């Protein structure tokens, strides 16, 4: 199955969106049904262990580029996520491992696979950001394969549900961006500095505006 | 998970049994109580092989939990014949060769009796629509339609001979023998060819 679309985020910049989408914490909080999304060493993940580890963890949403830089997605990095996809009474939890296979401002792509007790999926997706008149356009595409019970029994719902997950993800990203902007504006008033200006340099520096930086980190 | 004690009255006999919440009514009937006349044909609630009457209505017993049926009255195919006499629907199926392998037949007959209670004089089209919840892979349905027509005639004749009306006995609606079928059959929407 292939899905693709363009999501328009208003009143924001490519840099802001890039920064946001580079932040696993923001992504975790924007993905519907995502219990955790954390970096792991390799694709062989013990989810039971991770579940225990993550029960009491605290994750700070932030707009601070320094903090985000510490935890930003890295090309070649592996990430484990526990995702519950709810479709009415159907609520499988997928143990998912994602690998960022390409990340170069303003494009990112990843491959991943997830499994639940009787179903599994594989996907590869990519997105690229571009500026529009009043914000940013995120062009995304995903190729997904579904296996097992859901493929056999849930054929009718897979496509619309996948679309819904993406839609809710981006609208949640939009909300979080807005919150960050509000917070940033608050900071700006207090500091009387221009966070956007100073951020930009930082974004360039730590988030790998040039591809060569990110690959060796 | 707690087990539940339930009571089912099947074909006039009371049964007390203990079931897990997840036990489907059809399995309670078949595996616990031995009413194996009711068959299981699918798990998507489409084939109707498991149709029984639950408090006088035809339902798919694979889509009812046994706990939900606690206290209910159930009629299965084993209860159709009375005093050794076939129900007219049973005779209809035999006379019209309305069955071949017979697996769908109990459910088909339980659905048909429910249909005839609501509509004692259905057209062939109405019979086909009325049995849309039951699949048969053997007969091509034509002789099933014949069987239900045959049963309707038989029940009608029986009712006339008795000076009564099957609909009276069946649902107390007072409508007789399809003479004002509008009472129980809705006007066609039209356009729903299928």
């Amino acid at each position: 199955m292939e899905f693709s679309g363009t999501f328009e985020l208003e009143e924001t910049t490519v840099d802001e969106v890039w920064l946001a989408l580079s932040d696993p914490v923001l992504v975790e909080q924007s993905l519907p049904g995502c219990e955790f999304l954390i970096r792991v060493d390799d694709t062989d993940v013990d989810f039971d262990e991770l579940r225990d580890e993550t029960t009491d963890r605290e994750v700070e949403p932030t707009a601070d580029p320094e903090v985000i830089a510490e935890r930003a997605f890295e090309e070649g990095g592996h990430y484990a996520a526990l995702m519950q996809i709810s479709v009415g009474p159907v609520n499988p939890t997928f143990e998912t491992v994602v690998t960022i296979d390409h990340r170069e401002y303003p494009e990112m792509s990843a491959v991943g696979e997830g499994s639940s007790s009787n179903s599994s999926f594989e996907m590869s997706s990519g997105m690229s950001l571009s500026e529009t008149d009043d914000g940013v356009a995120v062009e995304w595409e995903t190729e997904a394969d579904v296996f097992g019970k859901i493929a056999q029994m849930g054929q009718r719902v897979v496509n619309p549900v996948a679309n819904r997950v993406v839609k809710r993800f981006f609208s949640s990203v939009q909300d979080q961006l807005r919150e960050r902007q509000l917070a940033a504006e608050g900071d700006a008033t207090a500091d009387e500095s221009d966070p956007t200006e100073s951020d930009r340099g930082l974004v360039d520096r730590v988030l790998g505006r040039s591809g060569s930086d990110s690959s060796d980190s | 998970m707690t087990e539940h004690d339930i009571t089912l009255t099947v074909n006039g006999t009371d049964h007390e049994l203990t079931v897990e919440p997840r036990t489907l009514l059809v399995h309670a009937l078949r595996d616990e109580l031995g009413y194996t006349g009711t068959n299981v044909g699918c798990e998507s609630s489409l084939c109707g092989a498991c149709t029984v009457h639950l408090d006088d209505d035809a339902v798919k017993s694979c889509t009812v939990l046994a706990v939900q049926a606690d206290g209910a009255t159930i009629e299965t195919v084993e209860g159709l014949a009375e005093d050794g006499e076939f129900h007219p629907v049973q005779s209809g199926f035999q006379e019209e060769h309305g069955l071949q392998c017979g697996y769908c037949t109990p459910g088909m007959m339980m659905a048909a009796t429910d249909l005839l209670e609501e509509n004692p004089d259905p057209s062939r089209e109405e019979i086909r629509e009325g049995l849309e919840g039951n699949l048969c892979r053997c007969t091509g349905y034509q002789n099933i339609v014949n069987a239900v027509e045959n049963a309707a005639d038989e029940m009608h004749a029986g009712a006339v001979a008795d000076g009564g009306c099957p609909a009276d006995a069946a649902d107390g609606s007072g409508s007789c023998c399809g003479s004002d079928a509008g009472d129980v059959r809705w006007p066609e929407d039209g356009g729903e060819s299928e």
Partner: protein
Amino acid sequence: MYPDEFDYYEATTIEEAIDLLEDNAMEETELLAGGHSLLPAMKTGLSSPDVLIDIGEVDALHGVAVDDETLEIGAMNRYSDVLGSEDAREHAPALTAAIERVGDRQVRNRGTIGGNLAHADPASDLPGAALVSDATLVVQGPDGERSIPADEFYYGMYATDLGPAEILTKIEVPSAADAVGTYAKKPSPSSGYAMVGVAALLTVDDGTVESARIGANGAMDHGVRLDPVEEALVGESLDEETIATAAGHATDELDTALMMDDLQASGEFRAQLLEVYTERALEAAVDRAAAPAAAD
């Protein structure tokens, strides 16, 4: 065929059901109404709730009543209960026309109108009819009761405005006793669910359409009103030409790129079917308008 284990509670009052929902908030909990969407999903292993709360026997959720030109249908009425109610058929002709086409005989004997509406299956037969009937869904939760108009109830596929501890208690429908209501459906030959279904509720005076409400399910991920069709009907005489023209507007305001697209039918074909079945729903309305007595 064999559901996973779960705990089962039977509620006898709405309040008890809400308490049970709250008590089991940490578990995956589902309300069990007629069970005709939930149990098949559980039997095939797609759905595996920890707790089921059976609300099928809650007395307050039953009954059909007319009050001040408003028809109230308790959420746990089975389809066959609603069809057996003269009041429902008189005051909610589009809704009952749609209910007639739900599932099959056995399903209608067991499935409930509230279960259907709360389940929000886009291919169900009721969302379009609920919209054209201007239905209000009354829900009750820990914070009391609230009323949600049908057009605000549905978010998308299986997604509604119902809160986690809320229960749909009844459906209120303003009387449409002076209207003709119809429902035309293209069922999937396998599942019987609607590839598209179109509900129409019209008032016609002397051959002229005074008001028109047209709604569809199956086509999009939730029920939709077909405003352009309605606009093309109002004030016109209900004839073949008007119907054809109006039906031609069925997809005008729908994003056809978002049409349901699956094994049963592509989005393009659903768009085509939507026009055809809008036409059929309206043609059926002509027939009924011509013989209003038959609708009773």
